[in-house]
C-alpha cells in the first residue's frame, strides 16, 4: 500500500517538475487549473444571480460586477462561473471517447495489419470524409440532446478519425523498433506489446492529442449551441453567447460586455489548454521522465 502511494507521489512530483521546464507551458498549466477550479468549485461559493434588476442593465465592469451586467441587470461574472462546468464536461467526455477509440483501434490497425488494418482504415476514411458539423446539425434535428453526456459522447464518436490515423502511423514506426521485435521473439503476446511496449512510447502524443480533441470539442459544442441546434437549457458559455446574439447584443455598444465575456472565457480556456501542451510534451516524454 505504501509502495503504491509512494509510486503515485513520485509520478506526480516528476510530472510537475518536468512541467516547470517550459515556462509558458507551466503558466498554461496553472491557468488551466485555475479555470477548472473556478468552474467546478466556484458555483458552490458564488451563487448564480437570477434576479432582474432593471436599474442595473448593461453596466460595464466595476468593483461590484467584475464582468458587468446583462440585459436584465444580472451579474455576468456569476454566470461565467456557472457556465463553464457543462462546456468542460462535454468537451472532456468527447475528448476521452475520441482518444480512446483512436488509440485502441489505431494501434490495433498498425499491429494486426492485413485485413484488420484495411477494415479499420476504410471506416476511418469514410467518417473522415463526412463533414462533421453539418452532420451534427442534421442529427440535432432528429435527436434531442437533452442530456449533455449524450452530446459529449456524440461529439467524441465523430471526432476520432484524424487522431486514429496519426496514432496508427506512430504505432507503425514504433512497431519496427527492435524492442518490439524482441518482444515478439520472446513471445510476450499482443496485449503486452500494445499496452507495455507501444502505448507508453506514444504517451506524449496521446496526451497532446487529448488536449487538442478537448479544444476542438469546445468549439464544435459552442458552435452547435450558438446556432440553437442543441437546446441546452442550463447556463453555459455557449448559451450565453447564443442568447446575447439572438437578442441583438452585437448591435449596440452597451451590450458588449455581455457577449465579450463568455467569448473571452472560452478563448482563455482554449489558450491555457493549448499552452499547457508544451509542458505536457515534456512531462510525458519517456526519456525525460526517467532522467529526473
Amino acid at each position, binding site marked *: 500500500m505504501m509502495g503504491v502511494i509512494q509510486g503515485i507521489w513520485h509520478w506526480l512530483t516528476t510530472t510537475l517538475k518536468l512541467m516547470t521546464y517550459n515556462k509558458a507551458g507551466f503558466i498554461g498549466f496553472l491557468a488551466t487549473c485555475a479555470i477548472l477550479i473556478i468552474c467546478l468549485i466556484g458555483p458552490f461559493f458564488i451563487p448564480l444571480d437570477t434576479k432582474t434588476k432593471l436599474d442595473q442593465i448593461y453596466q460595464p465592469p466595476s468593483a461590484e460586477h467584475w464582468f458587468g451586467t446583462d440585459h436584465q441587470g444580472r451579474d455576468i461574472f456569476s454566470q461565467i462561473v456557472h457556465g463553464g462546468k457543462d462546456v468542460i464536461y462535454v468537451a472532456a467526455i468527447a475528448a476521452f471517447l475520441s482518444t480512446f477509440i483512436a488509440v485502441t483501434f489505431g494501434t490495433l490497425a498498425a499491429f494486426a495489419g492485413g485485413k484488420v488494418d484495411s477494415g479499420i482504415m476504410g471506416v476511418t476514411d469514410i467518417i473522415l470524409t463526412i463533414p462533421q458539423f453539418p452532420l451534427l446539425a442534421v442529427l440535432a434535428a432528429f435527436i434531442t440532446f437533452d442530456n449533455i453526456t449524450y452530446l459529449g459522447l456524440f461529439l467524441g464518436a465523430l471526432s476520432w478519425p484524424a487522431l486514429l490515423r496519426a496514432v496508427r502511423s506512430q504505432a507503425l514506426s514504433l512497431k519496427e523498433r527492435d524492442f518490439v*521485435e*524482441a518482444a515478439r*521473439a*520472446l513471445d*510476450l503476446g499482443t496485449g503486452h506489446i500494445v499496452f507495455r511496449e507501444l502505448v507508453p512510447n506514444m504517451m506524449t502524443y496521446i496526451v497532446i492529442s487529448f488536449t487538442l480533441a478537448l479544444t476542438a470539442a469546445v468549439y464544435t459544442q459552442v458552435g452547435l449551441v450558438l446556432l440553437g441546434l442543441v437546446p441546452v437549457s442550463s447556463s453555459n458559455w455557449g448559451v450565453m453567447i447564443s442568447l446575447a446574439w439572438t437578442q441583438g447584443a452585437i448591435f449596440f455598444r452597451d451590450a458588449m460586455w455581455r457577449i465579450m465575456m463568455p467569448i473571452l472565457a472560452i478563448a482563455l480556456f482554449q489558450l491555457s489548454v493549448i499552452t499547457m501542451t508544451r509542458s505536457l510534451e515534456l512531462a510525458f516524454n519517456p526519456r525525460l521522465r526517467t532522467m529526473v
Partner: protein
Amino acid sequence: MAPIIEVRNLTKQFGKGKERVTAVDSVSFAIEPGETVCLVGESGCGKSTTGRMVAGLLEATSGEVLFEGKNIKQLDSAAFRRYRQTVQIIHQDPYSSLNPTQTISQILTAPLLRHNKVKNRVAAEARALEILEVVDLTPARDVIAKYPHQLSGGQRQRVAVARALTVDPKFIVADEAVSMVDVSIRVSILTMLARLKKEFDVTFLFITHDLALAKYFAWEGRITVMYLGRIVEDGPTQRLINDPRHPYTQALLSAVPEADPELAQHKRQIELRGAEIPSLLALPPGCTFHPRCPYFVPGRCDAAVPALEALDVGGRVACPVRRQERVSLLV
C-alpha cells in the same frame, strides 16, 4: 547429431512488381548444436534478413527453416512456442532494442512471468538479478532499477543478452551484436557470449560485416560469406581466413583495414574491375560478382548461377573458375 537449425533454399523477396528485389536467394546451411557460425557480408547481402528468418521474425517467400529437423511452419502451437523461446535474437543497436519506458527489472521480469519460469514477482526479481550477474552486469542491484538510457551502450547490450537468456535459449542469432559498442568493450561482450556457449550450451549464429571480429569469435567454428543474397563461400574459419577460395572472399579479406601500420602498408590488394556493388534491383546474370571479379571468364561466369561445390580443404565455394586458371587470368 541432428542440426538444431537448418535452412533449405531459403528465399526472401521484398516489394512488388518492378520494385521486387530478392534479398536472400536459395540459401541453404545447417548448424549443429554447439557450433559457432558467422554469417559475413557487406550491407545488403541478406545476412540480417537470413538471421531474422531463422529467428522466425520474418516469413520466407520460399524455402524452409527447420528447427530440430522440423519445418517451423508445420509445428503445432506447443512446439512452435518451444521454438520461439529456444531461438532468440540480439539486435545491433542497443539504443533501439530496449524499451526506453521500462526499467531493467520490468524488461527482464516480463518474459519470466509470462512463461512461468518463476512463481511470482519476488522470484522473478531474484532470477533477474541472477541473470544480470551471468552477463557480468554487476553489482546487479544497482542496475536492475535503472532505465536503459542510464546505462552505457555496452551495458545496454548486456541487458539485451540478459533478456534473451530469461527464456533459456539454446540458439542465439547475434545480429551485429557488438558493432555499435565502443571498441574497448567489444571483446568483453564477445568473451561473455563465448562463455554462454560453454556454460549454457548456446549455439550462435553470429552475423557481422567485420571479418576480424568473425575470425576472433568463430576461430573454432565456421564462416559463411554472403554476397547479394547468395552464399559464395563457407568453411572452417581458419581455412577461410588463411586460404580463401572465392574471389569475393579474397577481395574482402584484402580490403579489410588493419590496425597495424606495417601490415596496412604491405598488405596485398586485389584490384577489382568495378568498385560499385550492383543494385539488388538490377542484378547481373550468372555469378553476381562477375562484373567486379578480376578472374572473370566471359561466357562462363555470366551464364549460369554457379552452384556451391564442396572443397577438399573443408567448406563450399561457388565459383566456376578453378584456382589453377586464375593466375593466368590476372596477367
